[in-house]
């Protein structure tokens, strides 16, 4: 079986590669100097197909992070790959290519080349490495590979085999990789190299005269040559509260695991510091569905590193994924309060969070070196070979302050590549093979679905050119200093990095034309999103970019669970106003009986929006926004009245009873000066008018201009119940109740789609036999699920079965009313039901509680509160006794009603319950036999589920 035909010869060319699938194994085919070769097609660094890579000089470069592999041997030649690629035997016969997956390419490739067998210890100098991070581990390996035969001791204070840190803010946070797969060296590698490894051990001092290092264990270790690779630590936030639970710093595996768990549970994440790590954490947090705010002291991201214009490109990228930035913010303290954490900023501002992550840079672990008298700057000063001011001591990685190849600049670089390759150079030098490190700095970061690579050394003062639309895939920012390229930042475009490297290394002059780029203009509009784009290109790209909302994920269980954010989130609330109250709905606004005559009007609301409902001279009913077209003043202030016209008191603009603009004072100015522009047309500046419909004396309004008729909106069943209550008798308003309710507005709908609660919460009802589980009842839904009617027929309470009684904790025997007549039902409707509670989506409840009748209008004022306006009514022609019966029965409902007050309290309890426990969900699983919709048992939540089925489709969540 071994040889498998995989391609035809003609498809495998000298340049490029061909990806094929061989019995489930992805294989890349190459042609080098005429011969075909096969390797595994997936990069050993991360998941990328090498067949998409770049082939040159017998090597393939990974498209993702530019790891370079030798095609013939699979050898990993450069960062960031360190594991060799598997190769397969390949041959050509009769115009076809064959691969043998059971054998690698050539015998000599079996044992990777250049790998000396571990030497016997004890011959040669003692090399000691402080810090078992990436630099330390790579240096140890390099020492052996360079032929060092003496003892090598690697000492690290973490209880971990050396690991790579880049995944800590990326894959490990998202849970897409494991701690074991991010090791710098494969397990057992250190022992096969015969490197002594001492973990969990801290070095406390270096004695240069004695050439020993002291260990936290108390012992000391002698060295002939010493490498300091102690890296850096995350800078702690210098503010009170930085050590509160929920406040994270990120440097180690343990940090990342703790942060990952916290982010998964968090809804609101605040990241302090807009550096690379902060941005990556923000990206991960957004992916996990949290709302993210980044607080930054400077005015742009990465201010110390990049020109502001370049920083803003990263800002726009993050904003495009819903991250909010606040710049110029100094964090004064972090507090914990009942709802979570609060980050107090200087100047009285504060931001709430479930999780706070601090990413404000690092500090080199250079105390050992400094105390030993070595030359230090912000890192340990080294030369090109990694040597410190003491020739027996070297330093590498994040802790080293080294001479870059760019304009002789020195700096401390914190990058994977530097930690890897500068450490290898130092290790080889220590092993006797003098090696100078002079690679052009290279760095990558993965954020917001972009792979961003940077080559060269950026500086704040560089001028910035852009090729393409900044931040888009394939775009490149070029940073120029003195006419040459000092750095380039490429978005999903590794090829551009290769080209830029050549230009940077050549030092040849460049300009916009030779780079095919244009100056990056940047405009900051205060309060508006930052816009960045190439001159000439559309600046709209960013400025009109809709802020995508945080990712609201519905629980997997489906409609039987409702997440808390449905009731508490500001973004959701705003979307509800837009899509529901201002969307395709009929909203109750008034009764015709309130405005019988021309000029009569009432203040009302559609959702939170104030409107005026007015009857015009022609008898028509008009609904328009209570907001002057001039300067937005809410001009109509009295609850109701009669007027000939509406005049805004601020500048006396006047409107007719339909909301049309009729008068603008000094419209033509005075003495020919001032006034409105010539082309001003009053008809274009009326009040915003809504669509109106009425049915049986009830007035509805809609922002949609093409609403279906109310009858279609309600559906036949709901319409039937509506007409049972509004049976054609003229209505008579008996008065109003108004109350606030500290809960989400939907909870009120749910309360009336929840027949389960009625017998359990409302002891009053049950005690007096008004509603018991044995009563005939129905929970009716319309087809869409948005409207509902909870109906029941009164019984006298005597025939409650023992079984039903036991179940209802609320049932109390032996309770009698002195004046029971007020709960009598006097039949007056053509309906089998004595009670119907109708919810008309989205803002109306029709209460027919026996003979006490009312309309409740929901006016939301935010996610956590709404106003309830009750209009209690009877009918013209009610005699005095019927009127008083309705009024007495009114004691059941309203904010002081025996039932009404309990519902209000219960709803408050529910909202309170969500306040202090983040990320909860509600359980609405009663009555699984009816998934959603009408149910004939009271012990059901199917109507609530039906409502959320509708809500979710409108809300897109």
């Amino acid at each position, binding site marked *: 079986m071994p040889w498998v035909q995989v391609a035809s010869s003609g498809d495998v060319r000298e340049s490029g590669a061909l990806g094929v699938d061989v019995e489930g194994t992805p294989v890349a085919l190459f042609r080098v100097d005429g011969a075909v070769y096969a390797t595994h097609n997936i990069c050993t660094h991360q998941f990328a197909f090498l067949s998409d890579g770049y082939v040159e000089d017998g090597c393939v470069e990974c498209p993702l992070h530019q790891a370079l592999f030798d095609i013939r041997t699979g050898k990993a030649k450069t960062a960031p790959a360190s594991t060799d690629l598997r190769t397969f035997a390949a041959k050509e016969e009769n115009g076809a290519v064959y691969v043998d997956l059971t054998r690698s390419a050539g015998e000599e490739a079996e044992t990777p080349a250049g790998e000396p067998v571990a030497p016997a210890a004890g011959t040669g100098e003692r090399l000691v490495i402080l810090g078992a991070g990436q630099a330390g581990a790579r240096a140890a390996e390099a020492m052996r590979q360079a032929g060092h035969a003496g003892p090598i001791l690697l000492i690290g204070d973490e209880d971990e085999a050396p690991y790579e840190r880049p995944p800590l803010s990326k894959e490990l946070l998202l849970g897409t990789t494991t701690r074991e797969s991010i090791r710098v060296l494969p397990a057992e590698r250190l022992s096969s190299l015969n490197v002594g490894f001492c973990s969990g051990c801290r070095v406390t001092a270096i004695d240069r005269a004695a050439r020993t290092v002291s260990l936290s264990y108390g012992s000391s270790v002698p060295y002939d040559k010493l490498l300091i690779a102690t890296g850096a630590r995350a800078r702690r936030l210098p503010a009170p509260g930085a050590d509160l639970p929920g406040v994270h710093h990120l440097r180690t595996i343990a940090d990342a695991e703790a942060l990952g768990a916290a982010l998964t549970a968090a809804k609101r994440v605040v990241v302090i510091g807009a550096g690379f790590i902060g941005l990556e954490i923000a990206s991960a947090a957004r992916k996990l569905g949290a709302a993210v705010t980044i607080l930054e002291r400077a005015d742009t991201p990465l201010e110390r590193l990049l020109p502001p214009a370049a920083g803003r490109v990263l800002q726009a990228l993050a904003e495009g994924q819903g991250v909010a930035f606040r710049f110029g913010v100094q964090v004064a303290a972090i507090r914990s309060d009942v709802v979570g954490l609060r980050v107090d900023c200087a100047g009285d501002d504060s931001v709430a969070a479930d999780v706070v992550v601090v990413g404000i840079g690092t500090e080199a672990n250079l105390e050992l070196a400094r105390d030993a008298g070595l030359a230090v700057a912000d890192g340990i000063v080294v030369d090109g070979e990694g040597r410190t001011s003491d020739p027996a001591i070297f330093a590498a990685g994040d802790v080293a302050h080294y001479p870059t190849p760019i304009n002789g600049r020195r700096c401390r670089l914190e990058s994977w590549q530097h930690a890897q390759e500068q450490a290898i150079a130092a290790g080889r030098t220590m092993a006797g093979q003098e090696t100078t490190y002079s690679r052009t700095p290279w760095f990558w970061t993965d954020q917001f679905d972009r792979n961003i690579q940077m080559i060269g050394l950026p500086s704040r003062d560089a001028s910035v050119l852009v090729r393409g639309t900044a931040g888009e895939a394939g775009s490149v920012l070029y940073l120029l200093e003195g006419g040459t390229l000092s750095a380039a930042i490429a978005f999903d475009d590794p090829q551009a990095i290769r080209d830029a490297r050549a230009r940077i290394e050549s030092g040849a002059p460049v300009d916009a034309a030779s780079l095919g780029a244009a100056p990056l203009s940047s405009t900051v509009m205060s309060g508006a999103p930052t816009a960045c784009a190439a001159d000439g290109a559309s600046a709209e790209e960013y400025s009109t970019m809709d802020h995508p909302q945080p990712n609201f994920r519905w629980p997997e269980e489906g409609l039987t669970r409702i997440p808390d954010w449905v009731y508490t989130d500001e973004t959701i609330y705003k979307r509800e106003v837009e899509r529901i109250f201002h969307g395709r709905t009929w909203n109750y606004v008034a009764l015709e009986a309130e405005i019988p005559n021309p000029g009569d009007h009432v203040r009302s609301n559609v959702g939170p929006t104030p409107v005026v409902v007015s009857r015009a001279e022609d008898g028509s009913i008009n609904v328009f926004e209570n907001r002057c077209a001039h300067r937005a003043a809410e001009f109509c202030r009295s609850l109701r009245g009669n007027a000939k016209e509406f005049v805004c008191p601020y500048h006396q603009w006047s409107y007719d009873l339909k909301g049309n603009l009729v008068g603008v004072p000094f419209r033509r100015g005075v003495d020919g000066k001032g006034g409105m522009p010539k082309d001003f047309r009053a008809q274009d500046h009326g009040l915003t008018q809504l669509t109106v419909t009425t049915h049986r004396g009830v007035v509805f309004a809609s922002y949609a201009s093409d609403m279906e008729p109310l009858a279609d909106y309600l559906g036949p069943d709901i319409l039937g119940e509506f007409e049972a209550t509004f049976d054609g008798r003229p209505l008579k308003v008996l*008065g109003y*109740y108004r109350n606030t309710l500290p809960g989400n507005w939907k909870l009120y709908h749910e309360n009336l789609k929840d027949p389960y609660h009625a017998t359990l919460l409302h002891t009053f009802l049950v005690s007096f036999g008004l509603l018991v589980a044995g009563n005939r009842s129905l929970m009716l839904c319309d087809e869409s699920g948005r409207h509902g009617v909870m109906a029941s027929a009164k019984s006298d309470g005597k025939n409650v079965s023992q079984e039903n009684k036991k179940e209802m904790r609320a049932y*109390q025997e032996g309770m009698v*009313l002195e004046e029971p007549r007020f709960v009598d039902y006097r039949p007056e409707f053509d309906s089998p039901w004595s009670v119907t509670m109708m919810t008309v989506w989205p803002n109306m409840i029709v209460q027919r509680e026996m003979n006490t009748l009312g309309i409740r209008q929901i006016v939301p004022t935010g996610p956590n509160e709404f106003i309830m306006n009750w209009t209690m009514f009877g009918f013209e022609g009610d005699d005095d006794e019927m009127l008083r019966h309705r009024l007495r029965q009114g004691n059941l409902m309203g904010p*002081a009603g025996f039932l009404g007050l309990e519902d*209000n*309290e219960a709803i408050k309890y529910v909202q309170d319950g969500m306040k202090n426990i983040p990320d909860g969900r509600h359980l609405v699983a009663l009555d699984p036999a009816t998934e959603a919709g009408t149910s004939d048992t009271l012990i059901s939540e199917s109507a609530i589920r039906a409502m959320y089925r509708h809500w979710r489709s409108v809300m897109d969540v």
Partner: protein
Amino acid sequence: MDSIIDATAGSRQDRLLLRAEIDDFNAAYAAALDDGRLKDWPAFFTDDAFYLITSRENHDAGLPVGLVYCEGAGMLRDRAFAIEKTAMFAPRYLRHIVGTSRLLRGREDGTVEATANYLVLQTLFDRPESTIHQVGTYIDRFRRVDGVLKLQERRCVYDNLLVPNALVYPV
């Protein structure tokens, strides 16, 4: 003394005494409610009393509904009993601050009309502050029953149209 002195026509001294008596009455009424002695509350009323809590909006417009609308002491006792025994609500304290009363007029039938402003402060157990739950005025009619001053009618008319969530106890 079985009939009430004409509040406007009586002697100066009579008027002062009557007003002091009504102030005492209101203080006792408030104390009963503030102490949570709901059972004692109906006894401040005559058997045929009318008790109403309504907004100024309704009152001014002559609209009859009330948040609470009780005809007769039986309904008052039913309310006191139902609130105490059946109603579910978060525990709270209320405190009634009643201003000095103002006598309006005496009637032929021996009743006296008076008003007094009131403030009801509510304290929930999970917040440090007390909130002004209701600001209003009592519009009362008093009658003596066996020499004791009783309310034949009390209309509690509140200014703050928006009731904060729920009104549990009487005003």
